C-alpha cells in the first residue's frame, strides 16, 4: 500500500468524476429530491423555533429577554391552560410556564425554583435544541451565576404524539440511504467497471501501483462522497444535530460499508449492463429500510433484516433523537461485522482480479 499513489489516484477520480454525467447525476439526485419534497411539504422555509410563555407574575424581565431574542419566535399566554393548549395544537413547539416570583427566587440563588416546560411531540430536534440552549443562556443571564449551579428544577412534559411524523421526517431515512448508497456504492463501482472496460486498470497495474492501491483509492473516494452526501442531506433536512463525533463516526462506517460493497460489485460485474442489472435486482433490498420508515406502523424488526438498516438507524437515532454511543452500540456492532465480512470478500476478489485483468487485456 502506497499512500502517495492512493492520493494521486483519488485526484484522478475527482478529475474524471467532475466531468462524468453519471457521477454528477448520483450526487445531485438525492439533493434535488430532498429539495423537491421540502418545497412540496413546506419544510424548506420552516419558521424559526416557536416558544410560548405563561408568566404567573414577576418574571417580566426574563420574558422580555426572550421576546426580544432574534433566533426564536416568542408569544405570551394569559394562562397555563392556554399555553398548554397551544403546545398541544403545535402552535408552539415548546411552552414555558413560570411560577409567581420566579425571577426573585432565581436572583436570590438560595431558593429552589420549579417551573414547567411543555414540548410538542412533533417538534423537530433542531428547534427543540435551539429553544433549550436559548432558555439556558437566558436563565444564566437572569440568575447571574454559572448555569450548572443554578437552583432551578425543570419539569418537562411532552404533549402530543411523538410518533406523528412530518413527510420530510418520514422520507429522511430513505434520502439518507439514497445519498450514502448512491455516493458510496455507485461511484466506485461504475468507475471500476469503466476502468476495466477501457483497460486503463491494466495500464495502472503495470506501473509500480498495486491493484490494492487502486481499490483503496476508489473505496476512499466512495467513503468521502457518501459522507459529504449524508451531511448535505442531514443539513437540508435540518437534521444535522446530536453528538457530532458520533454522527461522523456512523456516517463514516455507513460510507465504508457502501463503498466496499460498491467496489465488490464493480469487480464482479462483467460490464455496466451487468452492474445495472444487479443494482435493479438488489436496489430494493438496499433501500427497503428507508421505504419501511415511511410507514411508522410497520414493525421495526422488519427493517432490521436489511443490512442498510444498520447505517440508517444509528444515524437517525443520533441526529433525530440525540442518542449516545451506548444506545446505538448494537447497531454499530452489526455494521462493523457487515463491513468486516465485506472486507474479507473484497480481499478475495482482489486476489482473483489481477489474473482476470491480464486475461481480459
Amino acid at each position, binding site marked *: 500500500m502506497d499512500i*502517495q*499513489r492512493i492520493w*494521486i*489516484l483519488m485526484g*484522478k477520480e475527482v*478529475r*474524471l468524476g467532475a*466531468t*462524468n454525467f453519471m457521477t454528477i447525476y448520483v450526487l445531485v439526485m438525492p439533493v434535488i429530491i430532498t429539495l423537491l419534497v421540502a418545497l412540496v411539504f413546506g419544510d424548506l422555509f420552516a419558521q424559526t423555533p416557536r416558544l410560548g410563555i405563561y408568566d404567573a407574575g414577576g418574571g417580566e424581565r426574563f420574558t422580555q429577554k426572550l421576546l426580544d431574542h432574534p433566533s426564536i419566535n416568542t408569544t405570551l399566554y394569559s394562562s397555563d391552560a392556554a399555553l398548554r393548549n397551544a403546545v398541544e395544537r403545535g402552535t408552539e413547539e415548546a411552552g414555558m410556564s413560570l411560577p409567581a416570583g420566579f425571577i426573585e427566587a432565581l436572583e436570590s440563588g438560595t431558593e429552589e425554583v420549579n417551573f414547567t416546560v411543555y414540548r410538542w411531540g412533533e417538534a423537530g430536534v433542531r428547534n427543540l435544541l435551539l429553544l433549550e440552549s436559548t432558555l439556558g443562556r437566558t436563565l444564566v443571564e437572569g440568575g447571574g451565576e454559572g448555569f450548572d449551579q443554578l437552583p432551578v428544577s425543570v419539569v418537562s412534559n411532552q404533549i402530543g404524539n411523538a410518533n406523528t411524523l412530518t413527510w420530510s421526517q418520514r422520507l429522511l431515512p430513505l434520502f439518507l440511504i439514497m445519498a450514502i448508497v448512491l455516493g458510496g456504492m455507485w461511484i466506485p463501482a461504475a468507475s471500476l467497471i469503466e476502468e476495466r472496460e*477501457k*483497460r*486503463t486498470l*491494466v*495500464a*495502472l*497495474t*503495470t*506501473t*509500480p*501501483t*498495486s491493484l490494492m492501491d487502486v481499490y483503496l483509492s476508489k473505496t476512499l473516494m466512495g467513503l468521502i462522497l457518501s459522507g459529504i452526501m449524508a451531511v448535505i442531506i442531514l443539513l437540508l433536512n435540518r437534521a444535522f444535530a446530536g453528538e457530532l463525533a458520533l454522527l461522523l463516526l456512523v456516517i463514516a462506517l455507513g460510507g465504508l460499508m457502501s463503498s466496499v460493497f460498491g467496489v465488490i460489485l464493480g469487480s464482479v460485474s462483467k460490464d455496466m449492463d451487468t452492474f445495472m442489472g444487479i443494482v435493479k435486482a438488489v436496489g430494493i433490498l438496499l433501500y427497503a429500510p428507508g421505504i419501511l420508515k415511511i410507514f411508522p406502523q410497520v414493525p421495526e424488526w422488519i427493517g432490521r433484516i436489511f443490512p442498510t438498516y444498520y447505517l440508517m438507524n444509528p444515524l437517525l437515532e443520533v441526529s433525530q433523537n440525540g442518542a449516545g454511543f451506548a444506545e446505538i452500540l448494537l447497531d454499530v456492532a452489526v455494521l462493523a461485522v457487515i463491513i468486516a465480512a465485506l472486507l474479507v470478500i473484497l480481499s478475495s476478489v482482489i486476489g482473483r482480479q*489481477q*489474473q482476470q*485483468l*491480464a*486475461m481480459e*487485456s
Partner: protein
Amino acid sequence: MAQPAISVNDLHYSYGDTLAVDGISFDVAEGEVIGFLGPNGAGKSTVVKMLTGQLTPQKGSASLLGMDIVKERKRVQQEIGIAFETTNLYEQMSAVENLDLFAKLYKVPNFDAMGLLEKVGLGGREKEHVASYSKGMKQRLMMARALVSDPKMLFLDEPTDGLDPVSTETIHALIRAATQNGTTVFLTTHDMVEADKLSDRVAFLNQGKIVALDTPARLKLSFGMRALKVEIELPDGGTEARELSLDLDQTAQDVFDLFKNERILTVHSEEATLEDIFFDITGRGLQG
C-alpha cells in the same frame, strides 16, 4: 559476460487446458531489440504479460535487469515501460494530464510532459481531450506514456498495428532513439517487415514454443533461398516471369542461357522474407 537484461528459463503458462507458453528459454542483452514473431495465439502476449508482472508464471523463472519477475514484481515495474496493442488511455483527460498522472505514479521528479509530447509529435494538441485524437495520435501518446519513467526496458505490443506511415515512422524513430540510449526493447509483432527493420534478433513463436531465434540476416541465410526474378518478352508480345535460384550449381549457366536466348525486360534479386522462413519452419503463416 555481462548480465542479460532479460533472462527467461523454462517458462510455462496454461489457460485452463490450453497451453499458451510451453517451456521457453532465452536471454536478451542490454540495449538489444528482440522481436517476438508469431501468429495470433502463438503465446507472444502471454510471454509479455508474465514478464511485465500481469501474470504469474506457472512454471519456470525469469529475471529482468537481474530482478526476479515474481518476487520483485513492483521493482521490475518501476524499470519498464509498456505500450499496449489496444489503446488504454484516459480519454476524458488531456495528453498532458495522462502523462502527468503516470509520471506521478512512477514518482518521476521534474517531469517534462511537453518535452515528451514534442518528441512524439503531439506538441500543440496537448490540452485536447484524448478522445478527439486519431488512432495514430493515441498510439504515439501510448508510446510517450511508456517512456514517461525513462525506462531501462520497453515492452511494445504491436506498436504500429493499423497505423498510417507517418505515425509508424514516428514510432520507429522513437524505438531507435531509445535503443541508442541503451534501452532494451521487447517487440511483439506479426509484422515481419517491422521486425526485420527494427530487431537485432527475432524469435519465432509457434504454439507456445520458440522454434527459431537469431538475427534476421542469419535466419535468412540458414533457412531462406536466394533467387533472381526475371521478366522476359515472349515472341507474341506477351511477358513471362521466371525465377532462378542463386544457390544451385548450374545457376551461372542458367543465367547465361537466359540472357543469351531471351529478350530480358526486368531483373530483380530476391531474398527470403521472415514470413517465408516462418512458413518453412512451422508450415503456417504469420497472419494465421
